[in-house]
């Protein structure tokens, strides 16, 4: 599955696009940091801006883990390098549906759970304030702002403010939107995450293997949009191209679908 170019609003790939000039106090992140995947980097015109606001969106509540994995991957690979802490703002409405990060799972994903800090505000206003304060603090590596749906007060002004803060402090700010629709905002990139069947597990054939996701870049301020299959490499803490090479969907012995039908009446005679 190769990249599908220019879904939706295509931006012409101009050569001058380093984007808007960096603000004062910007610590030399003028070119983006590359993903390591040539096609993706081409679309991003060099790479992803690390001192900016990004959004990761998923449509269904059960996709939350995939979206969280992608957001944490972005934070791990592209967060501010000399800092290590990741700050997560929990949305109380969301955690009932989807749960909270599990430290053992975080550790297997390549993220040190001792470096995670959570804020659990009650109102959206407090949540926006917390994200704002955290984005200003340059001792953090990344800020993940979890939000459910498309609340009214999280609008263009709020996202613009977060973008400016991220630019000044160098922190990567990521909005993790669960069960939300597309919404115009001041983010540098917006990603939509969907699940795909996983790759083969070399150690155990019938088991689930390395995860693969379809990432759709829906909005790209500094380049074109597109769609890629990526998988996360926790040991190197980088994203890799996840296109499946050979499909070996080995299935487990399954009970026939008629197993849950009532017993057929015994024949007479």
């Amino acid at each position, binding site marked *: 599955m190769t990249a599908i170019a220019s879904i939706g609003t295509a931006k012409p790939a101009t050569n001058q696009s380093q984007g808007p000039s960096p603000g004062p106090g910007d610590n030399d992140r003028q070119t983006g940091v590359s993903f390591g995947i040539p096609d993706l980097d081409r679309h991003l015109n060099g790479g992803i801006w690390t001192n900016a606001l990004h959004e990761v969106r998923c449509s269904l509540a059960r996709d939350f883990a995939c979206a969280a994995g992608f957001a944490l991957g972005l934070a791990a690979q592209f967060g501010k390098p000399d800092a290590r802490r990741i700050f997560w703002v929990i949305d109380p409405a969301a955690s009932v549906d989807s749960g*909270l990060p599990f430290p053992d799972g975080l550790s297997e994903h390549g993220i040190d759970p001792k470096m995670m*800090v959570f804020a659990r505000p009650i109102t959206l206003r407090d949540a926006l304030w917390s994200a704002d304060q955290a984005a200003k603090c340059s*001792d*953090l590596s990344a800020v993940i702002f979890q939000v459910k749906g498309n609340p009214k007060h999280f609008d263009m002004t709020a996202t613009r403010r977060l973008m400016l803060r991220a630019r000044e402090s160098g922190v990567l700010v990521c909005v993790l939107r669960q069960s939300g629709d597309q919404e115009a905002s001041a983010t540098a990139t917006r990603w939509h995450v969907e699940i795909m069947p996983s790759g083969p597990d070399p150690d155990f054939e019938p088991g689930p293997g390395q995860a693969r996701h379809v990432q759709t870049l829906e909005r790209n301020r500094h380049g074109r949009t597109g769609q890629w299959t990526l998988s996360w490499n926790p040991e190197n803490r980088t994203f890799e191209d996840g296109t499946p090479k050979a499909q070996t969907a080995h299935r487990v012995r399954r009970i026939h679908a008629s197993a849950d039908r009532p017993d057929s009446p015994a024949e007479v005679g």
Partner: protein
Amino acid sequence: MSVAFTHLPTDRIARLKWGKSWILNARADSPPLAVTDVENNAVRIVAHEAYAARFSIFRGQALSDARALVPDLECHTRDRAAERSLLGSLAAWCERYTPLVALDGEDALFMDVTGCTHLFGGEASFVADVETRITAQGFTVRVCLADTAGAAWAMARHGTGRIIARDQHIQAISSLPLAALRLDTSVVASLGRVGFKTIGCIADLPRAPLTARFGRHLLDRLDQASGRQDEIISPLMPVAELASEKRFAEPIVHEDDIKRCIGILAGNIIALLERRDLGVRTCEVKLFRVDGEVQSLGVHAANPLRDPDRIAGLFHERLGRLHSDLDAGFGFDIVRLNILQADPFNGDQHDLVERKDTGERYAALIDRLGARLGTNRVLQFSFADTHIPERRFALVPVSGRDGKTDPDQVALPRPSRAPTRPLVLLERPEPIDAIAQVPDSPPSRFRWRKVVYEIARSEGPERIACEWWRDGRASLSRDYFRVEDTQGYRFWLFRYGLYDRETTRPNWYMHGLFA
């Protein structure tokens, strides 16, 4: 100093009925008030208004008799909890005079005012101030200031003086009846039978026979009243190590004024801290209202602070959180900053714009978030050594670790492309309907949250046995499976109970999702 509220139960009801200033406004024309309770299997009057005494109503009188005398007597049943809380709030308010305020029984307070009276222009004006303010709030009160607590107690209830001069207390109480010594009624009665009526009678008697006849307690009380033995008064609120306060002739109402005042107090207290080489960890601001209520705002810092702007900034956030709940009433006339916990201060705190000192800005962020959201809402992981997944970790407040943020050392799994633990764990395992081959197979299909999932791949079981020492021997083991459905979603679900060995009908639960 002893402050005795002689009619606390009825005063409480009178305040509710007629407003706090019912004493100042001359009592409304209404039937007398009394408070009743069940004593000795009869409903008796335990408290009555001063006004009711005119009608020959007294304490201990049966209600039926009282009703016979005064048909329209207004009675209320005694509410001890409300009275206790009222006394507590009175004690909190009396902290404006001294931090050493203690409850005394059910209707009185002790205040240790050594060294405080000069602030009010002498003892006489101090006592007058206390009396007028408390009366203005609607309580009948009798106060007495003396060298010892026992003498003050005695004089307040049974005597007539309000101030006993220094070293005059023994003389002053010698004419008071023996009940003024806080003795049991039986002891008083037996002393009366022998012929002793006043304190002066027994003050000079030989001590050994008194003890032998009437018990140790009598002598203790005598000594406490005369000052030979110290009486320990434990204050109600913890006494702050350092405090700085500001009194206003004209009460302040606006939030900006309060913020500015807090800034001034923080600046004042820094000098004291510097002399002792300490930094602030926990402090609170108490705002005393004119009409008797006290508001308290607390703030906690992860590292010791000595910068007045930062301390004031934390209180600004705290005030911001309280915004609509801060009711100034008629204004605050005393603002006090108490330092509750101060630790040795290490390192300078200049105004860093941006420099190497990492962790500084992070600590400031944590403090600010804690002040605004509450310290129990800024969390990090803490780990426990157990196999049960949901018990392996907890989210605990960040600042509750003495400034260090190193959690316990528990072995965490290494990064792996095929993770065995989910990235996201549900708050509670959710029951699912699953079909699986017995005894040990993974499910082939299951239904979760009304959606059916068909399993394409799976791995397991991973058996996590119960913790029988915590949950009891009847608890069941879990067999965890990592399953992937045809679309690619990967789940972590478990079967609760081994088939046929632990239960005949094991249930299936969904616990987490993989990335």
